[in-house]
């Protein structure tokens, strides 16, 4: 063997030191795992929260509203307290099916690490313009909202002066306010669906507060500007989301921010042979957050795109505990009961459940449309396992339906279906 690099063995490797990775690492450490390492590609831990300088984080978990950096700092401080080994400025290059990780950093060089368990916590990326096939020129001034957020909040640079935002997801809404506060003129927020995918509070405090018009059922149909953006055309769309001719409105702008969806970043996962779900673009996992590859766990945005970081922390805590249990006790019995998306539901996680879960199981999913005064229901073999009513279910807000562990006792074989029941005759 002529290998000229270090190879180490550890119990646990956590990939990503954002809220997911930190929570998983902390949870594993708290059960007593010490042979572990958290790898983070940025120069500092905190993940995407570092650039989310707005508040609104942590209401469930800490009972107070924090800004992104403050929320992250809680976990960073705890991780430091627990002396969790962490290396920043390190990029993981590959993860193999037998949990061998290769990574590289300027300081530590190239390394190979054999791990008993791996937690995938790489987060997600933004959908680029190409995914929308928006026609027009390919000029400067077109950014995903997150890239603009990085420029403004972490690098201290304004990307432009007159802004149109495509997509009313939370990132787009937050950036509408952000750019306005920092002195830019935000001309419009454009959303192709008939409803916004962002939180209601953000519609109020990011658009309405600043008089920024929201164009629902509209999309950008043309982009102009040879070198730098000079303008876009926004048109109404029909029920099939196709632009309606003759409805175009032209905006003079030099900046277009795209907030058109987040995609879990699973390139490393695929390399490890982890099975992905087309509904979430994340791993297929059991209630213990274990993927199809034994010993590899996934949590946070890499598993499915969350709306609330509190849910990320809770989910990732479970993943860290499960990874620790795997390290100490070996594999748990296979989770063989499939979980299916019923009507009105998309991307239910976990997609598989054990015969006898050790704790209550929280199913998280996205409603596929807006439902008012409806109920989320989990059913197996004709038996109702849980029901939760809500005033509103909307695709912009991940829903949670918890099934008590007792409900799994003497449950017949067969799949669990999670669906939304609409009220009758209203």
């Amino acid at each position, binding site marked *: 063997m*002529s*290998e*000229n*690099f270090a190879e180490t063995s550890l119990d646990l490797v956590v990939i990503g030191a954002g809220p997911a990775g930190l929570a998983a690492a902390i949870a594993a450490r708290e059960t007593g795992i010490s042979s572990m390492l958290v790898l983070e*590609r940025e120069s500092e831990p905190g993940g995407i929260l570092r650039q989310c300088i707005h508040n609104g984080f942590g209401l469930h978990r800490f009972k107070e509203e924090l800004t992104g950096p403050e929320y992250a700092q809680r976990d960073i401080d705890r991780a430091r307290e627990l002396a969790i080994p962490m290396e920043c*400025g390190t*990029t993981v*290059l590959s993860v193999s099916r037998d949990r061998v990780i*290769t990574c*590289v*950093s*300027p*300081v*530590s*060089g*190239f390394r*190979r690490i054999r791990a008993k368990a791996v937690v995938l916590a790489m987060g997600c*990326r*933004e959908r*680029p*313009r*190409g*995914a929308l*096939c928006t*026609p*027009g*020129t*390919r*000029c*400067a001034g077109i*950014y*995903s909202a*997150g*890239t603009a957020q*990085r*420029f*403004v909040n972490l*690098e*201290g*640079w*304004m*990307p*432009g*002066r*007159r802004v149109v935002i495509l997509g009313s997801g939370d990132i787009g809404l937050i950036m509408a306010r952000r750019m306005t506060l*920092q*002195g*830019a*003129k935000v001309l419009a927020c454009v959303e192709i669906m008939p409803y916004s995918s962002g939180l209601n509070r953000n519609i109020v405090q990011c658009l309405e507060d600043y008089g920024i018009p929201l164009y629902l059922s509209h999309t950008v*149909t043309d*982009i*102009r500007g*040879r*070198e*730098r953006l000079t303008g876009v055309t926004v048109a109404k769309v029909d029920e099939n989301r196709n*632009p309606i001719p003759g409805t175009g409105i032209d905006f003079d702008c*030099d900046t277009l921010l795209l907030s058109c969806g987040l995609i879990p*970043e699973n*390139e490393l996962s695929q390399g490890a042979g982890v099975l992905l779900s087309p509904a979430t673009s994340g791993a297929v996992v059991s209630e213990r957050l274990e993927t199809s590859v034994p010993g590899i766990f996934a949590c946070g945005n890499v598993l499915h795109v969350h709306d609330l970081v509190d849910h990320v922390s809770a989910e990732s805590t479970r993943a860290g505990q499960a990874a620790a249990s795997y390290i100490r006790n070996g594999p748990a019995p296979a989770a063989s009961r499939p979980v299916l998306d019923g009507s009105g539901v998309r991307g239910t996680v976990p997609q598989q459940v054990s015969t006898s879960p050790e704790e209550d199981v929280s199913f998280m999913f996205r409603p596929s449309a807006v439902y008012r005064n409806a109920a989320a229901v989990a059913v197996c073999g004709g038996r109702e396992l849980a029901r939760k009513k809500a005033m509103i279910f909307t695709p912009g807000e991940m829903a949670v339906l918890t099934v008590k562990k007792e409900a799994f006792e003497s449950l017949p074989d067969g799949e669990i279906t999670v669906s939304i029941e609409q009220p009758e005759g209203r």
Partner: protein
Amino acid sequence: MNQAVFSSVPESDPFFSDVLIVGAGITGTALARELSRYEVSVTVLDRGPDVAAGATKANSGIVHAGYDAAPGTKKAYYNVRGAAMYESLCAELCVPFRRCGALVIGFDAADAAVLEDLLARGRRNGVEGLSVISGEEARAMEPALNPDVACALSVPCSAIVSPYELAFALADDAALNGVRFVFSRCAVSAGRDENGWDIGTASGETFRAKVFINCAGAGGADLHNLISSERLSMTHRRGQYYLLDRMTDLPFSRTIFQCPSALGKGVLISPTVHGNLLLGPNAEDVPDPLDTATTAEGLSFVLSRARRTWPQASTRFNITNFAGLRAHLDAGDFVIGRVSGVPGAFEAIGIESPGLSSAPAIAADLAADVATYLKLKKKADIIPFPPRPKPFCEMTDDERASAVRKDPAYGNIICRCETVTEAEIRSAIRRPVGARTVDGVKRRTRAGMGRCQGGFCSPRVAQILSEETGIPLPEITKDGGESRLLCDSVSSFLKGGAEHE
């Protein structure tokens, strides 16, 4: 001059050279490299900010076999000879090249007749290995093909290349051997006296040369008409594309052409050398020679035609769209050689498809012609092209470990999607004709060409560019001119107040 000038040979008068080439696309850079083997001073101007700024960066990347061009035309002659030079040229210049083969598919008897015609034409042009095969044989080679495919022309020698990476390498080689590259200079006037040419630019400078060579792509006819009374007429024929994400299992391993028919040349589907999938192009004439916008109609046309070849064609994994302009001379063939009736002027214009394939052969002939005209001597010593290090993304674990140990900048992954390191980005900026823009870095290294399309890496690339070039961050551009990425620091912007509207 206020713009960066690329050359390894310091000149006393930057505005004079023996030879002035206008156009740093595939034709101009190939020609510059050929001429750099002679004892002659060469300057290359381009109106764009970089090599390959025009059609060279926006085409299908196919090295055609040469069955398509009409026998007896310059297109046929140069295509076959140029294609034959590609493999060794790319090996020498460390440019990705793959002889993946091609199929031209047909659906009925009319198509079958066309395929037979292409076969005959190809043989006449000197193309080897062609054969007409059945639909079943075609599907055995390419199972994702439309089940209705009834026949196909098999073209084993067809190949794919990265056209702009080749142009960059040609330019680097030329610059290493003394050629001067000057960008953002648009030639707008050309006058001649007994000493030679005065080429005036839109920026008000004048470049002098004994010999002037027009390789100006979309601007070729206009430039020709400035100096010749025999007017040429050019149409700018735009072609739009989809570029799909890299996949370990692409649906096709060969380039798939559709049968040219009354409807036109047809939309192709092709793997790229980097493992993406290309769909396109359409063909529409546009009045503005700088109009490379994509359109809803054009993209929709490309997709619907692509479905004829690949019924499952979907844009689900599309990562970007782009368009390029073919420089189509109305007479239909390349115009190459001495400009008739104009001493000291040469040209290689109308270099539309199969221009990329033809470029090495065009350059060889044209350089020889210029050398004869100027009675040039070959140089005794050429600076050999330094072998390009293997890209980090292709290295083994061992190679990666060595690379990082020697240069820690290899340990800093800047582009996560394509695994491009800081070391490679700095290298791309320091090359003889190095990147000066974000897109210049992108095309040399692939940083920003992946599925997030620069969302993650572009702030970092801009920062590195600023450090390496000394250009302040707010002046870094995406692709030259006014395409600045940023407008101001957050605090200055806020202080600026109402001026922003």
